[in-house]
C-alpha cells in the first residue's frame, strides 16, 4: 500500500484534441512526478488517470481535472498470469470496494483506490492469495526509517537523475498480441473475475493490463494477451467472457504490439511519461494504451508500430 496521493483524472475529446492539454504534459512542465499513470486512447473521449503527491495537485490540476485523495495497492509478482487480475475483480467486486484505475508493470498489478479504502482493499485481496512468509505488513505508508525516507524523496531521485539521455535497462518489444477491451458495469465485476480465472486456467499470459472505472458504475478493462503463451486447444477468450458479458461489449484487436521499458527510479522522477509519449506522438506513432507503474513504462501501439516506436524512443532513451 502507498501513502496518500492525489488522483487526477482527465477526459479529452479527441475530435478537438491538442496534445498540449494532456495532463501528463502539464505535470511534466510543472516538474511534478507521476507515481502512477494509466492512459486509454482507444476510444473517445481519451482518458488519463495520474497519481501525484497531494501537495502538488492543486498547482498541476486545472478545473477540468477531477481530484481525490487516493492510494495505490499493488499485487506482485503477477508473473503475467490473468489470475492476478481475476483476484482483483473478484475480491474488490465481492466487497464492493471502490477503485478507479489499474495498470500493470513488469511485476506489479497496481490498483488505485480511495486513500481511506486501501486497507480494506488489501485485506480483501489477501483473502484470495497466499502471502509469503515474512511479507510486509498490510498497512498504509511505507515504514522507511528517517534517513531512507529523506533519501527516497530527495537527492537520490531528483539531483542524481537530470539526464540529457535517459538511461534504461533496455526496451522490450512484444508483438502478435491480442488486445481485448471489455466494457463492464460494476455489478459484473465478480463474473468478470470468474471469466478471467478461466483464462488463467488455460495458461494464458498477458503482456499488459489496464482498467478504468468511470462514473455511474461503468468501467472498461483492456487486456493485451500473448496468444503464444496460451494452451493450443484453449477456448477463445470470447467463450470465457460470454457468460459474464454481452459480446457486443467485447472488442478484440489482433496483432497489437507493445513497447516496455524500465529504468532506474522511473517511479520517482518527473517527465518520464511525457518524454516517452512525446517521442512516439512526434514520430506519428499512435498510442492506444499506456501505463507507468513502479519503474516500468508500458505502451500499446497498433500492428507494425513497435519497431518504429523503438527508434523514436531511442532518440531520448538510452538502451544498453
Amino acid at each position, binding site marked *: 500500500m502507498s501513502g496518500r496521493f492525489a488522483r487526477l483524472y482527465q477526459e479529452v475529446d479527441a475530435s478537438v484534441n491538442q496534445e498540449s492539454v494532456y495532463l501528463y504534459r502539464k505535470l511534466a512542465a510543472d516538474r511534478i512526478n507521476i507515481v502512477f499513470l494509466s492512459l486509454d486512447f482507444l476510444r473517445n473521449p481519451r482518458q488519463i488517470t495520474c497519481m501525484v503527491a497531494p501537495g502538488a495537485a492543486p498547482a498541476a490540476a486545472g478545473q477540468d481535472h477531477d481530484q481525490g485523495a487516493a492510494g495505490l495497492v499493488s499485487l*506482485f*509478482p503477477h508473473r503475467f498470469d490473468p489470475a492476478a487480475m481475476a483476484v482483483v475483480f473478484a475480491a474488490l467486486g465481492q466487497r464492493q470496494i471502490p477503485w478507479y484505475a489499474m495498470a500493470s508493470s513488469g511485476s506489479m498489478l497496481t490498483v488505485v483506490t480511495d486513500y481511506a479504502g486501501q486497507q480494506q482493499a488489501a485485506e480483501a485481496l489477501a483473502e484470495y492469495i497466499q502471502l509469503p*512468509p*515474512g511479507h*510486509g505488513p498490510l498497512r498504509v505508508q511505507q515504514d522507511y526509517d528517517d534517513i531512507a525516507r529523506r533519501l527516497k524523496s530527495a537527492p*537520490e531521485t531528483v*539531483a542524481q537523475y537530470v539526464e540529457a539521455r535517459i538511461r534504461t535497462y533496455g526496451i522490450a518489444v512484444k508483438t502478435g498480441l491480442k488486445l481485448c477491451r471489455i466494457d463492464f458495469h460494476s455489478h459484473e465485476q465478480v463474473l468478470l473475475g470468474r471469466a478471467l480465472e478461466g483464462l488463467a486456467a488455460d495458461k494464458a499470459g498477458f503482456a499488459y493490463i489496464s482498467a478504468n472505472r468511470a462514473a455511474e458504475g461503468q468501467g472498461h478493462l483492456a487486456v493485451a494477451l500473448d496468444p503464444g503463451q496460451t494452451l493450443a486447444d484453449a477456448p477463445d477468450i470470447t467463450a470465457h467472457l460470454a457468460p459474464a458479458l454481452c459480446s457486443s461489449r467485447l472488442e478484440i484487436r489482433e496483432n497489437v504490439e507493445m513497447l516496455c521499458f*524500465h529504468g532506474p*527510479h522511473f517511479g520517482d522522477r518527473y517527465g518520464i511519461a511525457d518524454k516517452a509519449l512525446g517521442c512516439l506522438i512526434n514520430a506519428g506513432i499512435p498510442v492506444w494504451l499506456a501505463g507507468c507503474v513502479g519503474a516500468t513504462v508500458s505502451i500499446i501501439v497498433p500492428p507494425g508500430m513497435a519497431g518504429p516506436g523503438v527508434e523514436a524512443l531511442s532518440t531520448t532513451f538510452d538502451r*544498453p
Partner: protein
Amino acid sequence: MSEKFIMVVDDDPDLVEAVSMKLESKQFRVAKAYDGEEAMEKLKGEKPDLVILDVMMPRKNGWVVCDEIKNNDATKNIVVVMLTAVGDAVQSTSYTHHDGKTTLADDYVPKPIDMDKLMEIVDDHLGA
C-alpha cells in the same frame, strides 16, 4: 548448469523481477524478498549462496540485514552484494558513514545497476 542459489532483495518489485530474470537466464535459482524483514525470514529456510541486497528498504535497511547475515554463524558465509546509490547521491549521511566504516558486505554495485557488471560480480564470487 549452475545450481547456485541467489536471493534478490529490493523494495522495487520491477527491479527484483528484472534482476531475477537475468539470473534465471543464466541458470541460477532465485528467491525474492521485498524488504529486510522478509529477507531475514526467508534466510531461515534454504540458505542462498549469494544475496543481492538493496540498502534503502522499509522495515529493515540493507546495512542491518548485511550485519545480521555476517554476524550469524549459520549465514556468515553467504556472499553479500550491496546495491547502493547512496554513495554517489549523498556525501554525508549515516548511510555513507556506515558504508565506509563498518559494513561487512563482500561487494558493491552502484545504482542504476549495470546489469552486465552485476552478472560479472556474481560470476566472480560464485565461480560460475
